[in-house]
């Protein structure tokens, strides 16, 4: 049993979730502000990558990032960044693919917060940023945990995009989802079950830990 794919998967999912937390939450906050037509359109656009089958999304990404085509070539020559057949590419693709699962629920949560919370903070001389960090974020913790868990799980199971732009290179882009898929394709059901079980067990433990932690944080005040 080769544990490298599982390690790679967890690494990919962790990095993707971390980056999405950093990018997604501020964007969600911004979107939750006074809604303009531009914001609404942007929000709808963020949902669009979902509509394409992952492998087709992967195909379009492949076109965009192929080192021999315009944009991919430019990236390669100027930033020395290769987004096909590389781990960085997987991270990038996963971010695009999971973006809406981070942004949308968090945005809704922000928009459900009463506006006097932020106002109270502003009158205390706090900037928008301080207000965001100390007042708004902590009060939508449950939604953020949920969004992070969905993103994490979704990235672990992602497969079509990864298969297309990753190239299944052992130790670099051969993540667990592909290893399981391979095992199923070769009808090595034993290996498939083993991989699936391990992935399940690890993820289940992580998700459970997050939820229990969340429960503790939002405890019933009369207990």
């Amino acid at each position, binding site marked *: 049993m080769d544990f490298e794919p599982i390690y790679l998967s967890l690494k990919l999912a962790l990095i993707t979730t971390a980056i999405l937390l950093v990018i997604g939450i501020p964007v969600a906050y911004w979107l939750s502000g006074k809604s303009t037509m531009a914001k609404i359109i942007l929000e709808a656009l963020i949902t669009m990558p979902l509509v394409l089958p992952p492998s087709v999304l992967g*195909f379009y990404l*492949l*076109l965009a990032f*192929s*080192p*021999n*085509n315009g944009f991919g070539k430019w990236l390669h020559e100027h930033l020395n960044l290769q987004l*096909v*057949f590389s781990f960085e590419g997987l991270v990038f693709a996963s971010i695009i693919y999971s973006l809406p699962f981070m942004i949308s629920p968090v945005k809704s949560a922000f928009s459900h917060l009463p506006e006097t919370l932020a106002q109270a903070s502003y009158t205390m001389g706090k900037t928008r940023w301080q207000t965001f960090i100390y007042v708004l974020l902590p009060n939508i913790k449950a939604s953020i945990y949920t969004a992070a868990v969905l993103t994490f799980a979704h990235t672990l199971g992602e497969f079509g995009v990864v*298969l*297309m*732009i990753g*190239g*299944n*290179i052992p130790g670099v882009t*051969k993540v667990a989802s592909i290893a399981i*898929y*391979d095992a*199923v*394709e*070769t*009808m090595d059901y034993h290996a498939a079950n083993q991989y699936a079980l391990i992935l399940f067990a690890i993820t289940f433990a992580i998700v459970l830990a997050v939820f229990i932690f969340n429960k503790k944080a939002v405890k019933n005040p009369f207990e």
Partner: protein
Amino acid sequence: QVLRIAVAANAQQLIKRLQKDFERKTGIKSEAIVGASGKLTTQIMNGAPYDIFLSADTEFPEQLYAKQLGLLKPKIYALGSLIICGKTNHDLKNWPKLLLGSKTGRIAVANPKTAPYGKAAKEALEYYQLKDKVSSNLVYAENISQVNTYIQTRAVELGFTTESFLYEHSDKSKLKWARVDPESYGKIEQGAILLTYAKKGKLKEATKFFDYLSSASAQQIISKSGYHLPVVKKS
């Protein structure tokens, strides 16, 4: 319902031509369900409503037959031919030397575990003792179609694929290719099987198509689509 033929991805171009010819001759309409051989096999084992299965190898049809999912013993309908090709500046005539020498970019092969063409490519690389030299350049595709996609989009410089790729590629001008010496890899015998499911109403049509596969006109189409013809065994 029309006749349903499950087809390995490498033969998707071939099947279109066969379907057209078959319909012209018999008036029987059919539809092709294209996929990786392994996936199609799993589906058939679990009740997929397919009448005929054209695999990329012989193992999968044999497995189906062993599970009594086939009505007749599988037969070989074509021998695959492996090529190396790419949108490259290099001349591929003497490709083993090219790979040995100059610095090449990424090379796509189908997953040797799941796709017969991948296995063949691996054998060829071993035959020319290139395996270690190029191993860091290799990327693995799910199936032969994905190799083709990589070649098309120039995500890779070279790829090992089926000769029939050349017959579906519309713009061949930028494409360089060379046949891989059949000596260097084991035969890619592609097997077909008439499935038990056909008994649910399409038995006559399915049998006709199964027989048609060995007809002269079918064989002509097969050999013009990038395949060799199987040596007909007397039984």
